[in-house]
């Protein structure tokens, strides 16, 4: 890798790089994203390597382990280019057949291709699969094409073209104007206009200035930022370098959680490559601009995703938020002006600079521009990472991309924005998703988690799950969040155990009101969303728990009642053998009886019964 001495040098290198590459080169791209890696990507890649050797294909076919391909439900995924054939659920055992049929003979291995769940139509090519058709990848564009450890791959895909343009053609003010005009808003959840944030920081007369990339993604079920950091680390760096040039920062930090070791090592490698090639360090591309990036690892506190807490954590202090103002853009890291943006925000920046603010502003809704990456998880058929234009409806995301609800059950709710988001019911399925529309129905964009729930979910239990998560993660600094979450959890537990009352609901409402206004940071302020939204849209479920002492979704164990129907019971004693507390008794080949006093409601008898004689309500 050469050290680029000038912008022309970079352009020439890229030209040669692209000229050298054959667009019809056979490539096998094995997904090594967060979903596929634990399912055995490395083994599949090793099998390909071995098979190539056997068949003497090593020189002809290029093998890459790349970032997330998106459709995690089909892990391990393999993409064959240039035909764009995708295979799913590939195991090392399938590899010889793929090599033999597809790579040698150009045929499709039918049994490994995508099959529509409803129509049973098969689709071998990426462009034919509905999951990919409805998407508009900007941030995820390069993930399934490039080798994340190769700077050449990134350059060949147009990487650092945004930086080149920024340094060559634009003044810092022009860059901020462009970001402002593009309408880009913070992708970490708050949705603050990025251009405005940069402008505030640029205007502060204090040196040095800092840039921080927030990679402390901690929402349960979310892996958008992880996928980007692992799959396209240079995009994050390029965005940060452009941002630093715009606001006049000399130093940048990427705050990554320690639980993402692969993201840390990929970013570290990318930083070293960027330094070697002259994209980082002194006098970047001979422009006279100095900037360097370091990685700072978080120890795993959810609250450290909050910008002021993150800064305290980086300074070596306790990771607790502090009241704003001052905002980090005025007084952030070590008291100096600091721009802090999320991974996805930074990854958008090079594309905006490269393709122009107008191009970006044309995508999305009136107040929310561009695309958003969501991690679509839960009760959908096709879980995975999706990137759609702002304004795409929930129905499109859940049904068209997600392939509908598992087991053809009914949709109940979708929870957006991580643990402190709200649960959106079916009546809002046609809601175009953007920052403001989500807020209007009591939820938040958050960083883009999207958990789909079907009728087997109990909304009281769901609220309890998220409140418990937040209770454990509350830093405990301010009274409303610390004591409030404890009491919300206590009340929900009372309701789940059949000890709830309607006064409890009123008290929760009151408590939520104060937590939402008087907490220090976003954690406490938005922690009320799961409760408020479920109490608003699923009040009947709360009332069923309180008045009838029933959980209709059969989730809240203390409210369940198991009985044995004497008519259907054959006396096979299968349940008796399973019962851990000896609550079932009776003679062999006679109807059994269940002692309600002893029953611990574990449900083992229900599962053991072959004759559906054990009833639950």
């Amino acid at each position, binding site marked *: 890798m050469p050290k680029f001495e000038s912008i022309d040098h970079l352009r020439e290198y890229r030209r040669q790089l692209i000229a050298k590459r054959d667009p019809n080169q056979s490539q096998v791209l094995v997904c090594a994203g967060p979903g596929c890696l634990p399912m055995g990507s490395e083994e599949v890649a090793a099998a390909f390597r071995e098979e190539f050797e056997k068949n003497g294909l090593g020189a002809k076919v290029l093998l890459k382990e790349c970032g997330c391909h998106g459709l995690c439900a089909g892990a391990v995924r393999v993409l064959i280019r240039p035909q764009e054939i995708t295979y799913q659920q590939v195991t090392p055992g399938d590899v010889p057949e793929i090599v033999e049929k597809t790579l040698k003979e150009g045929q499709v291995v039918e049994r490994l291709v995508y099959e529509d769940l409803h129509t049973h139509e098969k689709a071998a090519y990426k462009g034919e699969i509905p999951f990919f058709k409805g998407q508009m990848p900007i941030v995820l564009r390069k993930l399934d094409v490039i080798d994340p450890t190769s700077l050449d791959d990134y350059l060949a895909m147009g990487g650092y073209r945004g930086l080149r343009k920024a340094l060559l053609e634009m003044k810092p003010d022009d860059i901020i104007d462009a970001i402002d005009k593009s309408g880009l808003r913070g992708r970490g959840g708050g949705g603050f206009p990025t251009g405005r944030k940069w402008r505030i920081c640029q205007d502060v007369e204090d040196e040095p200035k800092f840039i921080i990339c927030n990679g402390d993604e901690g929402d349960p079920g979310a892996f958008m930022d992880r996928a980007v950091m692992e799959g396209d680390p240079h995009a994050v760096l390029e965005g940060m370098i452009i941002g630093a040039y715009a606001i006049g920062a000399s130093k940048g930090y990427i705050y990554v959680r320690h639980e993402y070791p692969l993201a840390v090592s990929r970013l570290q490698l990318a930083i070293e490559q960027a330094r070697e090639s002259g994209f980082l360090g002194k006098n970047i591309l001979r422009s006279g601009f100095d900037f360097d990036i370091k990685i700072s690892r978080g120890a795993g*506190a959810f*609250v450290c995703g909050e910008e002021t807490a993150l800064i305290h954590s980086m*300074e070596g202090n306790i990771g607790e938020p502090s009241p704003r103002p001052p905002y980090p853009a005025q007084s952030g890291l070590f008291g100096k002006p600091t721009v802090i943006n999320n991974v996805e925000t930074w990854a958008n920046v090079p594309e905006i600079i490269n393709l122009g603010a107008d191009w970006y502003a044309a995508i999305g809704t009136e107040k929310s521009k561009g695309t958003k990456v969501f991690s679509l998880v839960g009760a959908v058929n096709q879980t995975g990472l999706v990137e759609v234009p702002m304004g795409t409806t929930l129905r499109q995301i859940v049904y068209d991309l997600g392939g509908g609800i598992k087991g053809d059950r009914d949709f109940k709710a979708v929870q957006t924005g991580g643990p402190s988001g709200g649960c959106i019911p079916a009546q809002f399925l046609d809601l175009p998703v953007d920052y403001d529309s989500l807020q209007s129905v009591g939820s938040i964009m958050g960083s883009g988690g999207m958990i789909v729930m079907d009728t087997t979910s109990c909304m009281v239990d769901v609220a309890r799950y998220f409140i418990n998560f937040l209770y454990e993660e509350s830093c405990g600094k301010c009274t409303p969040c610390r004591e409030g979450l404890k009491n919300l959890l206590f009340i929900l537990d009372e309701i789940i155990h059949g000890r709830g009352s309607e006064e409890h609901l009123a008290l929760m409402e009151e408590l939520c009101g104060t937590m939402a*206004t008087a907490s*220090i940071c976003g954690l406490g302020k938005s922690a009320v969303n799961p409760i408020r939204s479920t109490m608003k849209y699923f009040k009947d479920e709360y009332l069923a728990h309180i008045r009838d002492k029933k959980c209709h979704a059969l989730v809240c164990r203390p409210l369940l009642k198991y009985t044995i129907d004497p008519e259907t019971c054959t006396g096979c004693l299968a349940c008796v053998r399973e019962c851990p507390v000896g609550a079932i008794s009776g003679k062999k080949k006679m109807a059994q009886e269940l002692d309600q006093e002893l029953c611990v409601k574990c449900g083992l008898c229900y599962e053991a019964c072959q004759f559906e004689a054990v009833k639950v309500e």
Partner: protein
Amino acid sequence: MVWKISDETAFDTLGEEVRLTINGIPIRAPQNQSLLVTARANGFEIPTLCYHRDLPSEGQCRLCVVEIGEHPHTQIVNSCTYPTSPGLVVQTHSEKVMQARRIVLELLLARTPKAKLIQELAAAHGVYESRFKTDDPEELCILCGLCVRTCREVVGVSAISMKGRTPDKQVATPFLEKSPACIGCGSCAFICPTNVIPYTEKNGVRTIWGRDFELQACTVCGNYIEPKYQLEHWAKITGDPVETFFVCKDCR
């Protein structure tokens, strides 16, 4: 980095005089002075638990909240760190503010049912009993952090800090062991609004945070002055010989 805006330190950052209104009354105050100081200086009482004029405010207790802005775009902020700015509209006792204070006090009353200060403040806000859950009826700590800040900012040793998260958070020495940094000065116990930091003095020995500190007797009158460690700390920061401090205040 703590943004210092207490009376003591605010002067560095204070700007020109600005006009704002508090509870409908036009006020003049230096820009960037905290709303709490501004309101109190103008006779508007705002209750606080974690505020101290000599310490940087961190906004823990949320009792000093006020409502800023004009209907319908108002916002609840804590007045101890929120700076004055031209044209700011502030309400110190609006319905929203009072509701927040009542709930905060009700939560604290459940946390520390026997703390006198909380009982009195709650009663002053019409809260006589709490609908919330009490875990430990003997608990007295309200986690205001005054002790931690005093130890760090005034004493300058940081012998204690907050440990853990959630309501189980507690003020503690590192690893709950005897802290070698502690000088036994007792400032933490002195500043504590609910008197929860145990502290004894017997036969020339002060015991605090699990450590015994030998007290220095005055070389003139023989009365105990302070722990030897503390006098050594004074000697270190002033550069004077430690013997300078072996004479008590009365005998000097």
